[in-house]
């Protein structure tokens, strides 16, 4: 019965001994949470720690087959223990707003966003259409979406990623609920957009809204949260005020998450804890047996004035890559950083000669590469390996890990011999040979990416083209993959063309950095110098937007 926005001074969310289980398997075990108005509590954890399920169970959306129990569960001062689906429908939107990770699929593509945002108003209030429209415009203005009157009639497909996320937030806050649940609200976004969304959430918090933020990335959380709860295996292992928790992490899990943040960590430092001794030993022996070619000849990849156009609807041609030149020295890492749409992936495809440039050329070891026919190129294909962002889709869905690696090895060799080789490759990427008979769908994201790296190494390449190899991974998993790539580079003398949108990752892995913006390289230089003293305004903007942990005091 209380008017919207009537947040009393009590906590807007209180949960005691919250547990969730799926068919007898418990996923969340006895979690206590409290969020006060104008406060942000962040739940941080690795994938599988139960953080998303926790958030969803707070709004009665834990999913079919979930058994949710709690000693106490209060939203906006009302107990929701034992609520029916009907009660939940009343509470959602009014007492709590929810922002899901993927704005692309969270908005109905066929409805104008004005209607999407107006839904909660239509369902929970008796406002007139004109009044509703005014409130929708208000909501859009408060999330900083310009031209709200135009946007209101557009569909989600007509908006950019950042605009879409803003529209989604607008729909969550249209009724001014006292609590906002944000599940990885910036994970799919570019850094500059991410910074804008975090700013927006900060201003909502200042306006008195309580926010429960779910994330795997401590650096993102540090910008917004007042308190942090670290979730591991469904239990809160540590909780405390943000500064204190970041400065003096007590739990092992917190320390691991902190160490995994790559930003500001010098090249070559480990981001993940050392593996168990057995694993290190096996990896070392694998490396010892790694057949290094008799003094492998250094291989250089060179791009000269690459241009690639794409045809868009209406026959217009727009340049995706516009005059890009770079040299990848043997054994070094060239980091290519840019936001979505900057042409990064096209550069990767050009380097791999999967598409031919409209102008300019790619040269391998001073010899023609992009101008050759595929048949001429094939003998030298083994010099170049590739690791993709979505490892899963890069594997033939019918094949097991053994089949995938076997294909990458010389297929004419006998089966047992290939199996031995496959085991050796798995050792190289620190995977047990037990995964040989598994299909990649049953592997975790990190394991998949390791299999992808193993496959890329099968032909003993000198260069790896890594296109966003870690951006689909949690920060802690990302840390282990980055450490692996670093070790492989040192042991095998590989050169990396490392493409990423994440400045922190680029800074950590690169010797040289090139900043790509609208298909052009706007700045290039030695990594350290470029990050210390960025010259181009775009680089500065990127750098300012990158989330980072606060400098430890003292």
């Amino acid at each position, binding site marked *: 019965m209380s008017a919207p926005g009537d947040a009393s001074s009590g906590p807007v969310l209180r949960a005691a001994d919250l547990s969730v289980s*799926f*068919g007898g*398997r418990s*996923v969340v075990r006895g979690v206590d949470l409290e969020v006060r108005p104008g406060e942000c509590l962040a739940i941080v954890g690795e994938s*599988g720690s139960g953080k*998303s*399920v926790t958030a969803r169970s707070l709004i009665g959306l834990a*999913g*079919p*087959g*979930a058994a949710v129990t709690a000693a106490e569960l209060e939203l906006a001062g009302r107990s929701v223990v034992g609520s029916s689906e009907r009660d939940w429908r009343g509470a959602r939107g009014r007492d709590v707003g929810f922002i899901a990770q993927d704005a692309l699929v969270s908005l109905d593509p066929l409805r104008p966003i004005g209607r999407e945002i107006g839904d909660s108003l239509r369902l929970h209030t008796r406002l007139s259409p004109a009044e509703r429209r005014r409130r929708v415009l208000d909501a859009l203005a408060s999330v900083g979406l310009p031209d709200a009157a135009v946007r209101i009639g557009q569909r989600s497909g007509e908006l950019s990623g950042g605009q879409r996320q803003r529209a989604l937030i607008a729909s969550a806050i249209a009724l001014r609920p006292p609590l906002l649940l944000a599940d990885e609200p910036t994970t799919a976004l570019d850094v500059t957009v991410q910074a804008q969304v975090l700013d927006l959430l900060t201003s909502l918090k200042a306006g008195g809204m309580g926010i429960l933020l779910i994330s795997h990335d401590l650096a993102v959380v540090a910008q917004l949260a007042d308190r942090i709860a670290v979730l591991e295996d469904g239990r809160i292992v540590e909780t405390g005020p943000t500064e204190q928790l970041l400065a003096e992490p007590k739990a092992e899990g917190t320390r691991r998450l902190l160490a995994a943040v790559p930003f500001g960590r010098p090249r070559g430092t480990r981001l993940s804890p050392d593996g168990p001794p057995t694993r290190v030993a096996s990896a070392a022996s694998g490396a010892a047996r790694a057949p290094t070619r008799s003094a492998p000849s250094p291989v250089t990849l060179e791009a000269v004035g690459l241009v690639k156009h794409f045809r868009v609807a209406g026959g217009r041609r727009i340049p995706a890559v516009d005059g890009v030149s770079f040299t990848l020295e043997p054994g070094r890492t060239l980091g290519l950083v840019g936001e979505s749409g900057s042409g990064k992936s096209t550069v990767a495809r050009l380097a*791999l000669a*999967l598409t031919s440039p409209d102008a300019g050329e790619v040269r391998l070891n001073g010899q023609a590469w992009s101008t050759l026919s*595929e048949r001429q190129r*094939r*003998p030298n*294909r*083994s010099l*170049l*390996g*590739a690791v*993709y962002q*979505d490892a899963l*889709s*890069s*594997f*033939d*869905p*019918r094949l097991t890990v053994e089949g995938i690696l076997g*294909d*990458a090895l010389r*297929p004419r060799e006998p089966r047992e011999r290939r199996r031995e080789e496959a085991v050796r490759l798995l050792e190289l990427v620190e995977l047990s040979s*037990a*995964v040989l*008979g*598994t*299909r990649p*769908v*049953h*592997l*975790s994201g990190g*394991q998949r990416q390791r299999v992808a790296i193993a*496959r890329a190494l*099968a*032909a003993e390449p000198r260069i790896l083209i890594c296109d966003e190899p870690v951006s689909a991974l949690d920060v802690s998993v990302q840390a282990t993959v980055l450490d692996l790539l670093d070790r492989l580079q040192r042991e095998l003398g590989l050169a990396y063309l490392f493409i990423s949108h994440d400045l922190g990752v680029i800074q950590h892995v690169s010797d040289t950095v090139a900043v790509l913006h609208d298909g052009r390289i706007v700045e290039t230089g030695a990594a350290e110098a470029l990050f210390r003293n960025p010259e181009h305004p775009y680089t500065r903007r990127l750098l300012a937007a990158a989330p980072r942990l606060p400098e430890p005091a003292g």
Partner: protein
Amino acid sequence: MSALDVRAAAPTGAVRVRRAARAGAGEWLALAFLAFVVLAAVAAGLLAPADPLAIDPANAFDPPSLAQLFGTDESGRSIFARVVHGAGTSLLIGVAATALGLGLGTALGVLAGLGGRFVDFGVNRLLEVLFALPGLLLALFLIVIVGPGTLTTTLAVGLSTAPGYARIVRAQLLTVRAAPYTEAATVLGVGWWRKLRRHILPNTLAPLLALGTLGVGQAIVWASALSYLGLGAVPPSPEWGAMLAAGRTYLSTAWWMSVFPGLFIVLTAVSGTVLGRGFQRRTRSR
């Protein structure tokens, strides 16, 4: 390995995957019925020792009883024996027609998908012409030219389903050809032929298996329809569609003459569909 699986999938996902993999009661029933039909097709004498063609005018129009499970027809022939012995013909037509349709469709689809722009253009126009005519009409047209019979029915049903399969194969082939894993094979230096053999064709054709299971049921219904119209199997031979037609005249007095063959047509088609769908769901959830 199971501990690993659990870790990989989100909790809700894990539950869903397991649900998809488990066969439901419907699928078991469908499987049992099809097993019966297949057994009838290969060893009819074992299930129904009576001669399906033996005339016994004294016992004409007997209703279903313990002695005559499905009753007898106007000449006193056992409907049960005829239904059982007819399974072979129906199943053969269904499987052969589907195989023909799938084979032809696959050939056309692969040709269009790999043959380059001009071949693709030509095949597509041909398919559009075939699509413009309803499938059954195409089958009738063929029978008018060649004359009725089991072989003609098979050919007619097979040919008229081919364009649909061809479309699906072509679309699937184009998708697989541009799939990231095909590209990954290129990057590894895998040659064109090996890519085709190892990745493109298997991934194009695997979904067809499920489609084929669906198709057999459909083909049996079509073939029965043609026989019902007197254009398929010729009368004394025990074919479900023909039996349905023969019973039509006596529907008010001897319902069992039409109902049992009809029931077998429907149940076979439904069972094929249930299994095909389950198959499809399983290959997709992988």
